[in-house]
C-alpha cells in the first residue's frame, strides 16, 4: 500500500508523516501528479491561509488532480477547508468537493470568543467509518479561525458558540477540521481507520 501526503505551501506535513510512522506506515511527501494519482491513500494536510494555498495548488494544477482522485482522500484542517466550496478567508473559491461554505468565527460579544479556537474540543454525531471505535464526545485538538458550516456531508459536529462541521465525508473524500496527528490515541485511531479503508 502506498500512502502519499500532498506537498504544498502549507505547514504541518512533518507531523502527519510522523503520525503515519507511529502507525508503521511510510508516507511519501510529493507534489508529483502521477505519484499522487497512483497512490492507494492520499492525505491532504495543511495549516495556513486559504487564498495563498489555493493559488499555489492552481499554479501546479494540483486542484484538478485532487478533484479527480478516486482513491480515499483525507483532508486535514486547511486541507478540509480547501475541499469545500468557498472560504471567507480572502474570498477564496475552493476545490468544491463538499457543498458547504467556510466562514470566520464571530464573537457574539467582544472578547467572549477567542479566535483562533486553540485546544481540545469534543466531536459528536459521529457517523463515518473513520470514526469506528472512536467514542462519541471524543476530544480532538483544534487550531482554527475559520470553520466549515453544517451540511449534507457533515459526519461529525463540534460546538464553538455555534455548531459546525468537525468532519465531512462524500464518496471517497474524508475530511477533518481537527488535527488527528496531534490528537493522542483517539486521533491516531482515525488515521488508522482511514488507512484501513
Amino acid at each position, binding site marked *: 500500500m502506498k500512502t502519499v501526503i500532498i506537498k504544498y505551501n502549507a*505547514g*504541518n506535513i*512533518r*507531523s502527519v508523516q*510522523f*503520525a503515519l*510512522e*507511529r502507525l508503521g506506515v511510510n508516507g511519501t511527501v510529493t507534489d508529483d501528479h502521477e505519484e499522487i494519482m497512483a497512490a492507494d491513500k492520499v492525505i491532504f494536510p495543511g*495549516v*495556513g*491561509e486559504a487564498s495563498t494555498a489555493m493559488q499555489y495548488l492552481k499554479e501546479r494544477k494540483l486542484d484538478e488532480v485532487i478533484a479527480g482522485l478516486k482513491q480515499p482522500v483525507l483532508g486535514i484542517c486547511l486541507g478540509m477547508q480547501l475541499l469545500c466550496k468557498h472560504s471567507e478567508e480572502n474570498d477564496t473559491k475552493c476545490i468544491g468537493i463538499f457543498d458547504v461554505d467556510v466562514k470566520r468565527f464571530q*464573537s457574539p460579544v*467582544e*472578547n467572549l470568543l*477567542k*479566535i*483562533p*479556537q*486553540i*485546544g*481540545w*474540543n*469534543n466531536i459528536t454525531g459521529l457517523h463515518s467509518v473513520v470514526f469506528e471505535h472512536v467514542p462519541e464526545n471524543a*476530544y480532538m*485538538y*483544534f*487550531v*482554527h*479561525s475559520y470553520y466549515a458550516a453544517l451540511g449534507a456531508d457533515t459526519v461529525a459536529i463540534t*460546538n*464553538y458558540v455555534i455548531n459546525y462541521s468537525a468532519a465531512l465525508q462524500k464518496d471517497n473524500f474524508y475530511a477533518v477540521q481537527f*488535527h488527528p*496527528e*496531534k*490528537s*493522542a*490515541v483517539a*486521533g*491516531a485511531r482515525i488515521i488508522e481507520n482511514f488507512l484501513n479503508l
Partner: protein
Amino acid sequence: MLTKRIIPCLDIKDGRTVKGINFENIRDAGDPIELGALYAEQGADELVFLDITATNERRKTLAELVTGIARHVNIPFTVGGGISSVEDVYVLLQSGADKISVNTSAFKDPALVDRLAREFGSQCIVLAIDTRFEDGDWYVYLNGGRVKTEVKAFDWAKEAVGRGAGEILLTSMNNDGTKKGFALDITGQMAQHLNVPVIASGGAGTMEHFTDVFENAQADAALAASIFHYKEIEIPALKTFLYSKGVNVRF
C-alpha cells in the same frame, strides 16, 4: 466544549531535561522525549520545552531534539528559549514543533512578532512574558527575569496581540516557586481583556490552585513544572479533581 488545558513544562539544556526528575517508571528521566511521551500518555494536553542551552551548538541540538519529540509525542508542543529570528522559527517548525514561544527578543524588537505571525500564522506564535508586581503594578522582566523594564505587562501583552501573537504565556515571578497559587489578578485581567488564550504559569502547589486559575481568573490553560516532575500532583488525579469541581477538562 473547548476544555481547559494542563501543560507540563520541561527545561532543556544540551538536549537533556534539567532538574532532577523523580520518575521510577521511565528508563531515563533526563530524556525529554521519553518524559514528554509519558506526560502525553498520562493526559497532558500540551507540552512546553524551554531550552536554556547557551552554547553555539544549541541550534542544531535543539532542532534534532524537536524532531525526536515530534516523532514520538502525539500531542501538540511548544518550543521556547532564545528564539530571535524568522529563520530560527522556520527551522523549529520544519523540525516538527507545533508552536514556538518568544520573550526577550520580541520585547526588544516588537516587529519580530508581526514578521513571525505573517510568515507562519498567529496560531503558532506564543508570547511569553515574565512579570513581577511592584509599586502597584505588574512590570515586564527580560532575560529570564534578570532585567527589569518600565513597561507594564498588560500593555505589552495587548500590543503583542495586536501585532499577531496567538497566545500569551504569563509567568508571575512573585508566585513562581512559592507553591502558593497562580497570580489570579494579572492572569484574569489578560484572560478577560485579550482576544487570545492565556496560559497561566508560576505558583501551582495544590489542585485547588488550578481550579482557582480556571474558574476565578478564566485562564485558558495552566502550566507547571516541578509539581509534575516530582509527582506532587499527578495529571490523571488533577483532571479528576478539576472535573469534580465542574471544570471542563479532557480525559
